[in-house]
Each structure stands twice: as C-alpha cells, then as structure tokens.
C-alpha cells in the first residue's frame, strides 16, 4: 500500500533525495501497472485490428497462392455491403429482438434476486451463472434437444395450436433468437443485479408515502436508478449477439444466417479475406456508432 500512495511508513525528515526518488516512483508507477494490460491490448487487439484493416483494403483479385497486393481497395466496402446486406440487417434485428426479450426476462429476474430473494440470493445468482461453466457450444446443442421436432415443447405447442401440425421450432428464426437470448442473458442480468442490489428500498417506500402508484414508482424511482446497470447490461448482451454465428449455424436455416456466418464463409470457404475483413470492420463501425448514440442518449436526463 505504501508503494501506491507513497506516504506512510517512512520516517519524517528523510533526506531530500529520497523524497524526490519517491515522487519519481509515484510518477511512473501507474504506467508500470498499465504495462501488462497495455502490452496485451497492443499484441492481441491493436496489431490484429491493423492487420484486419489492411486486409480489408487488399486487392480482392489476389489469392493465397499469388499473394494479396495492397491497393487501398476502398470499393471492398460497398461490395461487401452489396453482398451481405441481408445478413447484416438480420444480425442487427435478431440481436435487437433478443435484447428486448432479454430485458423482459432479465429485469424482473435481476430485481427479484436483488430485492426479494433474501437468503436465496446467492443460490439464485449461482443459478444464473452456473450454465456458463459449460461450453457455449454444448449449451447451444442442448437447445437442439429441447426444441426437437419430436420433443415435448414442440408437441405441446402443436397441441395448443400455436404451431401447425407439421410446424417446428428448429431451423427457424425463432430458434436462433431464442438461442441468442439464452446464451447472452447472464451478461444482462449480472450488471442489472449489481445496480438493483444497491437500490435503497427506502426510496421506494418514500415514493409510496408520496402517493405514487407502484407503476409510477417503478418508472420514476426504480428504473432511473437502475439505468447504469441496464445500459451496461444491454451493451454486454447486444454487442456479442450481433457478431454471433454459432446460434445461426446450429439452430437456423439458410435464411437465418447472420453476418458472422458470412465472415466465416469469406475467410474459410470462399477464400475472400478482403471481403471478410471489410465486413468485420463494417460491423465494428456500426456497433460503435450505435453504442455511442445509445450511451449518449441514455446518459442524459431525458431518458433518466
């Protein structure tokens, strides 16, 4: 601790040079602490990002055998959009729908755990987190069993007439959105829980004392106070959901592929790395724009 603060254990009246040395150390210490993280980010984020950005501007007529020439081919971007706009749109709409469903399921859940669960709180939290101990892939494959055409869920939905006699859930958009919702829900619930847990229940009582209806209390007190958690949670949910391709690959059909599937195909199957890189960059840019807009908007008093 004394290292960090630079005060404390040293005797008063130490030589001046010692003091200077301490000040010196205090100045570069934060940078030293930053070093591992910065080196990591540089090696595994900055360098690959630059590489990817460069790849997106390579001459698309190159090949693995002949190599790729850097021709600053900015037309790769419009070309990539022309090729994959249905999948790009689909990625954002599926992720948005899944996020809304996630909030509908996750908010009451987080609220119940944070405010009403009492001594069950920890157990319920473990229940939210426990599925993450198994692999993402296994969890998604498990949904194939649950949604199976001959499974009880589809049988039940057919019985009550929600699905036609030969209706199914697997290989439909519904299954993909459901998979996205399930897989990313913990990322939404945990930050929400963190901010709801800190919510002072006396504020809600006070709202009641001032004759606010429960609904009004929710919208005037609870929701605004949980906004930071909701914003962080929706972002942690939405961003990976947009880029996901496992759910579409395992639970979807040819018309539910998302942009991640196209990137995968561009790099591995079609051997068109410039297009894959351009799509990756586009995705990053669109997500960044959405996040900035969202955070700025929800960060102001208009929403809160």
């Amino acid at each position, binding site marked *: 601790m004394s290292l960090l603060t630079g005060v404390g254990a040293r005797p008063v009246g130490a030589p001046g040079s010692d003091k200077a040395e301490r000040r010196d150390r205090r100045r570069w210490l934060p940078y030293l602490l930053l070093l591992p993280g910065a080196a990591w980010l540089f090696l595994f984020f900055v360098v690959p990002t630059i590489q990817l950005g460069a790849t997106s501007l390579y001459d698309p007529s190159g090949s693995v055998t002949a190599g790729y020439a850097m021709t600053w081919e900015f037309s790769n971007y419009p070309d990539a959009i022309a090729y994959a706009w249905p999948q790009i749109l689909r990625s954002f709409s599926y992720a948005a729908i899944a996020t809304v469903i996630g909030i509908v399921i996750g908010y009451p859940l987080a609220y119940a755990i944070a405010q009403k669960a009492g001594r069950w709180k920890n157990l319920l939290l473990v229940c939210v987190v426990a599925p993450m101990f198994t692999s993402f892939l296994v969890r998604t*494959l498990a949904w194939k069993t649950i949604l199976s055409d001959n499974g009880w869920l589809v049988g039940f939905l057919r019985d009550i007439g929600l699905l036609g006699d030969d209706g199914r859930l697997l290989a439909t958009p519904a299954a993909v959105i459901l998979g996205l919702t399930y897989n990313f829900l913990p990322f939404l619930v945990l*930050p929400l829980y963190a901010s709801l847990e800190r919510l002072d229940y006396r504020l809600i009582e006070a709202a009641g004392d001032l004759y606010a209806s429960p609904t009004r209390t929710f919208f005037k007190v609870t929701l605004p106070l949980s906004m930071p958690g909701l914003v962080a949670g929706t972002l942690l949910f939405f961003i990976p959901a947009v880029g996901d391709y496992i759910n579409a690959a395992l639970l979807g059909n040819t018309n539910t592929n998302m942009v991640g599937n196209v990137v995968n195909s561009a790099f591995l199957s079609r051997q068109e790395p410039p297009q894959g890189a351009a799509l990756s960059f586009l995705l990053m840019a669109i997500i960044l724009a959405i996040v*900035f807009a969202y955070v700025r908007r929800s960060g102001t008093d208009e929403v809160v």
Partner: protein
Amino acid sequence: MRNRSRPPLSPEAAALLSLSRRTLMRGALASGALAVSGGALVACGTKGAQQTEASCVSEDSSGSEKTLTVSNWPQYIDVDDKDESKRPTLVAFEQKTGIAVSYTEDINDNNEFFGKVQNQLAECQPTDRDVIVLTDWMTARMIRLGWLQKLDTAKMPNFQKNLLPSLKGRPFDKNTEYAVPWQSGLAGLAYNGNVTKEIKTVDELLTRADLKGKVTALTEMRDTMGLILQSNGHNPSDFTKAQFDDAINKLQKAVDSGQIRRFTGNDYAPDLAKGDIAACIGWSGDIIQLGIEDPKVKFVAPESGAMLYSDNSSVPNKAAHKANAEAFLDYYYDPAVAAELAAYVNYICPVVGAKEEMAKTDPELAANPLIFPDDALLAKTKVFKALTEAEEREYEAAFQRVIGA
C-alpha cells in the same frame, strides 16, 4: 428537491456514461492516426504462398533420429479396450522399427488446420510435423501450393501392392506419390426408417413431398455437389461449368421450396438419430455408428453413384523424418495391421487384403460393404475432380451463396 443524487456508478458504467463529444473526437483521431501508421506498416500486402521442389528443399535426418511426429484427427486410430492411452498398432510399430512416434490428435477441421500451418508452409518453414492427415480437397490444395514432399514409394512395398485400385492415380495426385489414404469413406444418402420409408435417389431426397423440411445436406461442397452432379447423369471427376450450374440450380430449387432444412457438418448425426431429420446427405462412417445403436438408421449409396473421399497422410515441406514417415505409412498398409485399424474406426479400409485378415477375427464386420465395399459399389463411386484455385473459389462461392453465407 431537484438536485437528485445518484448512487455511485460502477467504473465500467461511469466510463461508458462519461463519453463526451471531445473524448469521441480524441478517440477517432487516435484511431485514425493508428490506422495511418499501421497502414504504412502493412501497405505492402502479402507474398504469394506458392512453393516448388526447387524453392523449398527439405533435409531428411531419419538416418540419425529415430523419431516421428504424426498429426491426425481424433478417434482415428485403434486404442486398447482397457487402457485408452495405449494404441496397439502404434506400439507394435515402435517395437518393430525402434522409431519413437509422437502421435497427436490435433486436426479437427481442414480449414482450421490450414490456417494453423499456412504461414509456416508459405514461408518454407518447418511445422514440426512429419505426417499430417487431411481430406482430399485440402491435400489437393497443398499439393497445388507445392507444400508437400514427394514420397519415395519404391521404399513402400505394402503401399504399392495393397492400395485399393480405385484410389490409385486420383485426379489431384496422378502418380500417387504425395498422398497416402489413411481411411476412406462414402458420402451418400441416409435415412431414419422410424420416420420415413426407404429413400433410393438424390432426386427423391430433393423433391419427395413427405420429406419437406426434414432433409439436410452437407456444407462440404464436393460431397453435396458431387452427388447432385451424378444424379443429373454428370461425372463429378470431369464436368463442365454449365453442368455445375445445372446442379447448383437444382440445389437452389430444393432450398427455395423448403425441402432442405439446413446444411450441416457432422452435426446432422444426432438430428438423424432423433428423427428431427428424416433423410440427409451424410457420411458412411457416421451412419455405421448410428446403425449400431438403431438398425433402422441406414446408409444408401444412390443408384446414380456415391462420392468416395479419403483422408490422406502426407509429409509437409521441411518435415525432417520423411524416411521414418514412409516406413510408418507403409506399415499401415500391411493387411493385418490395416484390419486391426479398420475394426476400430469403421471407415472404408483402403487396403487390399485387410478384408481377408479381418474375416479371421470378425467375419461380421468383414462382410460390411461400408468398410469393405464390393466392386459393384466401388464402380459407382466417384472422386471429385481436382480444382484449380480459381475454380475452387468460383464453385465454392456459388455453393456458399445457395447455403446462405
């Protein structure tokens, strides 16, 4: 009280919420600067990956080093019933030759493995592997790129004598000197007899009304397209662009009509077993496994012809133990050894004479046409034509378009 105080924000939320236009600008400028300087760094693009025998010469130190490093797919070699870490045929090889084999199951996907070794092989650097096992088309790509060493088949008498005739002189390896089939398999039709009646042709699969939405095909372009080409009466080993387009249109129709539910890798197998899909294009090895659990799951080689594929062992450039590798691969072409391996892995055994060897120990398995196909079946199977890089990209692009990516 207007001056509401908020609970303290978590650092993450605070960071997110405190983004102002100024920080945004600063970030944009910084990333811009980064992109420009980074762009200068990588502005030269990438070099070609083509190698030739002259440009990449490998030394063989087998004489002094009795070691061998093999990379293969998981569950592709026999293991001891009692001790899964022991591999009987491999142990016997080590005892016989004194060559210590380091056997790793680190190939899970052709494309993924290609990505793993691409940079080394493009630069003519060692991959630290002496034997790699890859599917036909990937082996073909590596041969085309000049990344594999030519084997001295004169030193491989078993291989010369016992290789299945239909696997000799395949289109991508005309002189049979780069690729040694490890195991082969068929791509054909499969159905679950609990859910549907027998299926005999590719056309049935693509059009029969009772199968609508209960059919899958493989994401492996050569298998799916090879079967459709044959159903049109064309030869997958030798076809024209127009014939390929015909086949693609046929596939597109089946996708548009909702007949085909999905395109899959190996993951069709559990769906077929459960009956979620009634029929599919699948691989013989998987279906044998399913058939052991449920005899009503059956593999069908369509009348028009099935596709024969192999996983091939090859020696990559700069691998330092080529002679050891040749001894190793030749050992597995000894019929008795091949029979032991085939009894465990259940794929098509590419070794002539293994059937007779297996008949001594397990006559039932030896009679299985999907492990030891008879001549009638082999006569109807085809190997997909060797594609140039341009063709590969063109056909794969058309196929990926149909499967939605």
